Each structure stands twice: as C-alpha cells, then as structure tokens.
C-alpha cells in the first residue's frame, strides 16, 4: 500500500512537548484507519511513530496536558489470548491520553457461547468504540474485524503473523540506544517460525538499511525465510558475530512436546545466549527479549540481569509507543 508521506514535517514533533496539546495536534495523522502489521507501514510512518513516541515520553510528567489529548474517546481491548504486559500497556497508554478504556472479558463473553468473530465485530461496531485493540489466536483476525468496524483496529498480536506495537517499541528502544536504525547488524535467535514478534521485527527492520541475521533450530526456521531479505545463519556464533543488537525470542516449551526440538538442554546449549557468547558481538551490543523470559533456556540469568540487557527498557517504552500509535490514528490532524 503506497502512502503519501509528503508534507510530513519532522520539526513539529520536537516542539510538541513545549507547545503542549496544540503542538501534538499539528502532527499529521497516519493515513490509515488501522494498525494491522509492520508489513504495510512505510519507513517514514515507522519513524513518525517513533518520533511521536519520543514526544509522549518527554511529556509523561505533564499528565494534565496529555490527558486532554483523546478525552472523550473510547478504547476497547479484546484479548483472545492471555497477555499481561501488552494489555496493561495499552490500557495505561489509553488512560494517559484521557480515553475511557474497556477490557472485554473474552472468556466470559458471548465468544465462550460460540459467537462468530463476525458477530463479535458487528457488536463492537454497534457499541461504537473509537479504537479496538485485539489479540487473537488466528492470523488475520484483526484484518477480518477491521473490515466490519469503523473503529481503528490495532493488532496486539495475531496468531503467528504480526505483533506490530511490540516491533515498534523494540525499534524505539534500538533507536534510543544506537541513535539510528540503519547500518546496524541485528541478530534474531530462536523459534522464528512461530513468532509473530520475529515477523514484525523482520518486516520493520527490512525497511531500513540494516543487516538482519536469523538463527534457530532448522525445524523452526524454514528456508523460505531467506526470501524476506534476511540472512539465515546455521550457527549462533555466526549470527551474533559483530552484532549490534541480539534479539532473543522466547522458546515456547510446548514446542518440544510436538517434536520440534529434542530437549530444553540441547536448545539452551545450542541457542541460549550467555555473557560469554555476547563477547562475540560488537563491544557495545545490547540484548533484547520480548518477554516473558525462560531464564537459563534462551537467556542466561546473569546476562538478563546485566546492563547488556535492555528488557525492562522495552517494557517502559511500550506505553509511550502505544500512546503515539493511538494519537496518530485517532487524535492528530
């Protein structure tokens, strides 16, 4: 999808904080109703979201101004899969901007009675929310809902497909630490096949001129991934050599039960990140993880607690990034 980025003027963002609400209002809105994935965002849109997230972060102390931003607007979260950090992060972001937030209790709602996704969507449309944040076990479910509702649909994770706000907060963190998104070497390690986080990060970073290397057990890393412009490394040492950022994915332990890898021990030995392995990366490399971590499996405990790890920064930045997304979809011009 092509998107007009002409007229995007980066100057106002830095002014926004000092100018308060009016400054934020001058920012041009995203020319899209929904945020469904990183795949169809342009690099300009990504940078815009990150810039506005910066404003939001800077303005956090000025709660009164922020809470005027989206006053009177409503946000519903609909999580068909468990989540703590993503849902609470959206809730905090919405409330910080003055929105009323409803957390739909999916397990006790009509869905448990067998209501179809289409009818759920039509019901959400009739209630009339301004934005709907959805997490669903089925890839494409947010896209499906977006066709039926006039509200802005934000994908908070769909099946094995995408988790765009996670990728945005990760890019935000990367840019914050490294000062740029181009000219970096980023290694993503783990279960690439089943990871929506990996897909969103790959789609997002492939818009910038950085080197992307993926590595993981071959049963969880189909060869066709090389068609996305990423390098597939056979050994973890090869993947992280000289890397600026090491992104560790959570290994879902139930994958072992279906025979995708033989044992936790072998996985930890071959693909686990340790302080020793990090030495192969560039000197100021950072280690990221979307959480929740399996300490001692994909990441060694001492590494997770070291200053190399930016895992808690990621969580903190999540709120600002989600505020930026809400603002750019609902509030700005």
């Amino acid at each position, binding site marked *: 999808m092509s998107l007009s980025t002409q007229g995007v003027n980066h100057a106002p963002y830095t002014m926004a904080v000092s100018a308060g609400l009016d400054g934020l209002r001058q920012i041009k809105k995203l020319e899209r109703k929904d945020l469904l994935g990183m*795949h169809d965002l342009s690099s300009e849109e990504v940078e815009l979201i990150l810039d506005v997230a910066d404003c939001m972060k800077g303005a956090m102390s000025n709660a009164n101004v922020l809470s005027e931003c989206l006053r009177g607007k409503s946000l519903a979260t609909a999580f068909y899969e468990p989540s703590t950090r993503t849902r609470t992060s959206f809730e905090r972001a919405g409330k910080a901007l003055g929105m009323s937030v409803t957390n739909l209790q999916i397990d006790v709602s009509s869905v448990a009675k067998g209501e*179809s996704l289409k009818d759920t969507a039509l019901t959400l449309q009739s209630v009339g929310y301004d934005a709907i944040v959805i997490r669903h076990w089925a*890839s494409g479910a947010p896209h499906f809902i977006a066709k039926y509702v006039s509200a802005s649909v934000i994908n908070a994770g*769909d099946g*094995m497909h995408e988790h765009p706000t996670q990728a945005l907060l990760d890019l935000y963190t990367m840019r914050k630490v490294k000062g740029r998104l181009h000219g970096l070497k980023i290694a993503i390690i783990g279960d690439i096949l089943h990871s*929506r986080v990996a897909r969103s990060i790959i789609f997002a970073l492939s818009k910038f001129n950085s080197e992307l290397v993926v590595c993981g057990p071959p049963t969880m890393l189909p060869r066709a991934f090389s068609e*996305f412009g990423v390098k597939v490394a056979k050994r973890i040492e090869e993947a992280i050599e000289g890397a600026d950022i090491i992104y560790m994915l959570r290994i879902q332990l139930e994958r072992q039960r279906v025979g995708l890898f033989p044992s936790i021990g072998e996985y930890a030995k071959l693909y686990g990140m340790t302080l020793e392995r990090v030495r192969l990366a560039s000197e100021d490399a950072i280690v990221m993880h979307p959480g929740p971590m399996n300490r001692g499996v994909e990441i060694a405990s001492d590494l997770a607690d070291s200053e190399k790890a930016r895992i808690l920064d990621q969580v903190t930045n999540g709120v600002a990034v989600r505020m930026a997304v809400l603002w750019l979809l609902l509030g700005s011009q």
Partner: protein
Amino acid sequence: MSRRLLLKNGTVVDPSQNLTAKRDVLIERNIGHGTRVIGKIVAVAENIVAEDAEVIDCTGKLVVPGLVDMHVHFREPGEEHKETIATGSAAAVAGGFTTVCCMPNTIPPIDSPLGIGYILWKAQNESKCRILPVGAVSIGLKHEMLSEMGKMCEEGAVAFSDDGAPIQNAGFLRKVLEYAKICDLPVMLHCEDKSLTEGGVMNSGRVALSLGLRGMPPEGETIAIFRAVELAITTGTRVHIQHISVGRSVELIRMAKEMGAKVSCEVTPHHLVLTEEAVEDYNTFCKVNPPLRTREDVEMLIEGLNGGVIDVIATDHAPHAIEDKEVEFEKAAFGTVGLETAVGVIIGELVMKGKLRLERAIECMSTSPAKILSIDAGTLKVGASADVTIIDPNLEYIVEPSEFKSKGKNSAFIGWKLRGKAIITIVNGEIAYCEMKRGES
C-alpha cells in the same frame, strides 16, 4: 417443441473426430420410454437444410460436445443449505456442463447401492443435467470396511472415490484397488498425506510465512501420488488422480504413464490460473484443498495439459454456506465453486492468452473425461446423444456471485473479468440452459 433442432453456422470443435470447422449440427428428438425425450445427433455437415427444424443461429459461436465435469460436490443429501442436485445442476448447465460426477462425501456418504439409487432418483426428478454418482470406497469414508462396489456399480455408480477423506493407509488403499477390479470402474483418489498437511491451511512457503499461516507442503501431494501410482502399477487397476496442484506431480504421473500404469489425472481451473498470492489479505474464498501453489507450479500444470500428461480439467465445485467462509482464515472451509466460471477461466485466461489450444481445452473438458468414465458423451459423432454446448468465445462478463445459479457464492474469481461463456446448453436434445434469443423458422 419441434422434433428437430438445427444448430446453424457455428464453428464445431469436436476433439473426438479431430474436427474444427464451420458445420451445421442436426439433432433429432424422439419420445423414448415413458415421456422422456431422447435426442440424438443425426447429422454434422455443411449447409444442412431441415425445413421443419427449429434453427439456432450459431454464427460466431463454438459448438462443442457437452462439457463433462468429473468432480463436483452437490452436498445432497445432508447439506442442502449449501447446494442441492437441483441448484447444482442448474449451475452446471449455466456453465455449459451436460454431465457431472457427484462426489460421495455427503452426509451420510454415498457408500451403498441405496445411496447411489437415491442420487439417481433425485437426479431423474430434479436435475437439469446428467448426474453420474460416484460411490465411496469404504463404508462411511472411514477406510475400515470396503463398500459394496459391485452392487453400487450395478446400481449405476460410474467410479469410486475417497474424495474428502484421503486414504492414509497404503495397505487399505491396496485392498481398495484390488477389490475395485470386480467392476472395472476407475478409482478416483484425492492424494494427500495428512501427516505432512495436518493443520495446514495454504501452500507452505513465502506467502504462508508472511501471513503467519500453517503450510501444506507440496510433498503432501507428491508422496501420496507416488504411492497411488505405484499401487496402480502393481494392481493394474485404473486410477484417476484428482485435482493435482504441484508441478512435480505432473512429472510423477508422466513417469507412471510411461511405466504402463492405467492412470489419468485432472486439474482444476483455479489451480491453472491462481497462485498462493491470491490468499494474501486472508481471502478465504481462495482457501482450497489442495492449496493454490506457486507460479512455477501453475506453469508446469499448463505444460502438463498441453503435453497430454494431464487428461482432464475438472472444477471440484465445492459450494459452502457463507458463514463457513466469513470466519478466521484458519477456521474457514476449504473449496471454491467452479461450474459457472470454468469456461470463462479456461477460454479467457488460457485459450485467449495463447497458453492452451482451444481443441485441447474442449478435449479436457469433454471428450477425455467421457472416455475415462466410459460414457456416451464427449462427442458430436452421428448417433451420439445430443449433449451439446454452444459457447460465445467473445462474451465478456464480470464474475458476480449473486448471479450464480449455485447456492454457493464462494468463488475464488469474484470480480474477475472473464471471457467466453456457454450461452446454450443442450442435454439429450433438450435446451437445458439458454441466454440467447431463439426463433423458429
């Protein structure tokens, strides 16, 4: 109704007699047993004069043997909300088909002589085209007990199939093929190794990875085909491989044919035109089994048709209720309707674009399936049943499901501009479908 019908000035394309020429076709209709009309072709020649005949001016049109679709699902009995023999056959004649084979995976499955009798009885009263029932190879399609193939054959089954429930156990498949020899009918196989495809919803590869959908690898088809053709060779039974979708399947079947296996195969119009990319945007109407593959596969399938390895174009017409498609992609039912778009897709997308010869297209949609089924169809030879389709090769239309006669609106081709359409379909001498002005002379 006039006793004679004259199709004047059309271009006759009849692969059964290697004929592509401007010819008139004269049909004679007699009252047979009871009140049923029996129509026969009595002459194919230039400038036929038949003063008492009703004349249809076929100038600029193609006059071809009635099309035969070896693979449809009419959902009756059991799922009449999706399709019935009445609506399915109306769709068939609207698409130019005069004969269809109904697959047995209904509810309950057609696995007994009673079931075959039911389909034929329904067809006699309600169908606009010829309905040929296919019997299940096992009771309940469960692959445990052989079905009464002998009795079903006597009752009127034209073939046996495991469609909808592919046989996984090679030992049972061997038993089926051995037993099927009692009546020398072909066994139609849906070749899929479920251990490779279970949970998959589209072709595995780049697009599935990008959409985060589980893939069905090509070898899920090729391995099952390899097993099927190997057993066809060792048992000597006639095997018809249904809806092949993978390029390498063509190669396997070519090898099997060279080794003397009595094997034939079919391909659907959607597998000849669409690729996995049609699924992007989670379009459930393009969720089919076998899944849409890659451009290279499509090219190899077309080559297989041209080279004669693929014998038949069949639609796998699979109507569904809209609520089975307007759901999460992973939950959506597999299948697309096809009867009312097949001619437009094959003529417009393949013949007109120079990828397939017209004669070969008609052969694969009529003469060749009739031969595999050993039925009186697929020819305009004098003495043959008067099953004739008149096609306007230049008629352009946009696919609009609300205009379908089929109850199934789930077409993979919605919104496509197709070229080529059946405008008159004659079944046994009677005009079963017509969208052209007619005048008696």
